[in-house]
């Protein structure tokens, strides 16, 4: 990175953070601090919801996933459009009608205090675990780019988010997310354009090469439950995951509760329903095109070159050097046969084309085996090597192939993405802790200013917890899958709680509470002893919770349907009226 890159990086990241903090200063009103005074329009909400989900992991790890496995991961998002439609139609009106600060407050109104605490507790557990990983991802970037110790970069990456989230609350989060998304779209768009320009083949030729190496198989109709990403796991299992994530995870619920009206919140969700799949497809395609690029350009045997060069110093047997040399030879041969294949296609010689393609595919298998051996060798020499190599693919391309200035913009995009989702997470963790635990259990009578102060302290607390966890996240495999596996362990059960709340009006708190606990044990059992894709955990957890709650309620005797719609909740106690 050059001086220009650092100027672009720090001015954009710190500029957005400082601006957001300054604009949202003096937020002593609890409603303003936690719900942004409910003044946001659909565009801000739409970008906020998008920014909350699309963390640095999305922009760093997903292109790497495209590089390694092709477009198949797009199926993971197939549940998003329908999930958002259901949330807009059913969940959102309920939350607004009840005027809740947290999704779990709604559970308390519908059922009882213990069910509310269970829902909130599962959220804190799940999001608290994930928060550490989402700090870890951008820290890898800094660590690689600046050659700083990883732990130091973890601490620095977390502190910026903690500061402006604590200072400005929900509105600071929404405001900064809007500008961070602008930086992200600009950076990724420019990267895609430059990649297309640098590709040593036309786009149709590049897609032909990608297809030959099975990178364009986006839709898989397989019904094998062990297959991680298929149309069915994405549509059914993914639907439940996305329904739970967008509908019951406070980090998302808090974003659209800031809407100035139900209409604005709904439109913000519909914006995401329309754009999510195209956006993820584009990011994966970026990774696929990076794969094609490196078939014709020199490629490192291992993309984590910082760790590779450090480990070479300790490679007494010389195995790593040999693998590196072997890979270079194979890569050159593959490049030769790929060029021969494309030439034969242009000349209309199918026999030569078939032969050249077969040669290229055979050599590719050999070179992939060498890459796998090299990764193993690296981990043998340096066991603490962070993450999967595919996490370093896109950042390697950015640092080595993009012009100065644009590098800074892309790194700023990665950081912007990390900070935007981190801030939303911290804001949600603090809100839930304050409203569902602190105010509900410990301090029921206090002023709004007191709860705002409590929220700030809880923001700092959770920020420090996330930092501490990130320091131990080095052993997580592919980051984006780790995040989603953790989510899937708990999301299904939480969704079950909400589905019972919305649709099974004759089931009460005791039945659903115990059903949820049993369902959680079942999901954990599948994870540790079963052999199904993690996307199915959501469906399993939700189904067990719903069905078991019905059975338990049948034993207890069904409750009569309420005569009138449930009443509204009050705002949290503490004189948090309009004056606050």
């Amino acid at each position: 990175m050059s001086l220009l890159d650092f100027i672009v990086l720090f001015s954009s990241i710190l500029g957005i953070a400082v601006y957001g903090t300054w604009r949202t200063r003096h937020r002593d009103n609890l409603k303003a601090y936690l719900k942004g005074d409910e003044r946001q329009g659909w565009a801000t909400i739409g970008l906020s919801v998008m920014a909350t989900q699309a963390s640095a992991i999305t922009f760093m790890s997903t292109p790497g996933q495209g590089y390694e496995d092709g477009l198949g991961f797009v199926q993971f998002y197939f549940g998003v459009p329908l999930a958002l439609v259901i949330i807009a139609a059913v969940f959102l009106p309920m939350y607004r009608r009840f005027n809740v600060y947290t999704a779990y407050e709604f559970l308390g109104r519908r059922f009882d205090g213990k069910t509310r605490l269970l829902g909130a507790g599962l959220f804190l557990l799940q999001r608290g675990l994930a928060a550490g990983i989402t700090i870890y991802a951008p820290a890898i970037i800094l660590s690689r780019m600046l050659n700083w110790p990883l732990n130091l970069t973890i601490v620095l990456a977390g502190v910026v988010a903690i500061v402006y989230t604590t200072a400005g609350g929900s509105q600071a989060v929404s405001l900064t997310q809007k500008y961070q998304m602008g930086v992200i779209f600009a950076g990724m768009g420019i990267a895609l354009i430059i990649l297309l320009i640098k590709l040593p083949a036309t786009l149709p030729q590049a897609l032909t090469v990608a297809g030959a190496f099975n990178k364009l198989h986006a839709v898989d109709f397989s019904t094998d439950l062990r297959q991680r990403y298929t149309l069915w796991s994405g549509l059914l299992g993914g639907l439940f995951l996305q329904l739970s994530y967008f509908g019951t995870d406070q980090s998302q619920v808090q974003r659209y509760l800031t809407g100035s009206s139900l209409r604005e919140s709904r439109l913000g969700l519909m914006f995401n329903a329309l754009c999510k799949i195209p956006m993820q497809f584009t990011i994966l395609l970026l990774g696929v095109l990076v794969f094609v690029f490196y078939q014709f350009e020199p490629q490192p045997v291992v993309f984590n070159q910082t760790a590779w060069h450090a480990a070479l110093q300790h490679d007494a047997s010389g195995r790593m050097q040999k693998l590196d040399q072997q890979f270079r030879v194979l890569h050159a041969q593959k490049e030769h046969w790929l060029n021969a294949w494309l030439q034969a296609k242009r000349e209309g010689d199918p026999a030569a084309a078939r032969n050249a393609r077969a040669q290229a595919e055979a050599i590719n298998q050999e070179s992939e085996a060498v890459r796998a051996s090299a990764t193993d060798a690296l981990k043998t020499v340096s066991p603490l090597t962070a993450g999967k190599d595919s996490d370093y693919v896109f950042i390697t391309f950015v640092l080595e192939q993009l012009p100065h200035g644009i590098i800074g913009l892309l790194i700023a995009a990665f950081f912007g993405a990390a900070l935007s989702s981190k801030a939303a997470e911290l804001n949600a963790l603090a809100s839930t802790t304050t409203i569902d635990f602190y105010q509900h259990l410990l301090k029921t009578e206090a002023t709004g200013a007191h709860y705002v102060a409590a929220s700030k302290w809880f923001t700092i607390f959770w920020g420090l917890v996330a930092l501490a966890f990130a320091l131990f996240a080095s052993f997580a495999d592919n980051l984006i899958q780790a995040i989603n596996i953790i989510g899937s362990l708990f999301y299904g059960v939480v969704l079950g709680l909400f589905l019972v709340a919305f649709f099974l009006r004759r089931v009460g708190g005791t039945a659903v509470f115990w059903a949820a606990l049993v369902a959680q044990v079942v999901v954990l059992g599948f994870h540790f002893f079963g052999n199904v894709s993690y996307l199915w955990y959501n469906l399993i957890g939700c189904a067990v919770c719903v069905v078991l709650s019905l059975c338990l309620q049948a034993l207890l005797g069904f409750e009569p349907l309420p005569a009138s719609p449930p009443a509204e909740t009050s705002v949290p106690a503490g004189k948090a009226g309009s004056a606050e």
Partner: protein
Amino acid sequence: MSPARGGEPASKRPRPQTPAELTDQVTGLPGLKTWPRVYAVIVVSFLIWVALLYLLGKVFP
């Protein structure tokens, strides 16, 4: 929510819909005046995307 159901006590009775809530039922989008129409557009666009993605793998095998 009645206390007999075990729900936390609410401090207000159900309130009638405000004018703002009535206007929430209108989307304000040209050509898509109702929310069911908006949802239908979302579902259709999703199906189109799935079809295009499937075709991409078939065109470049």
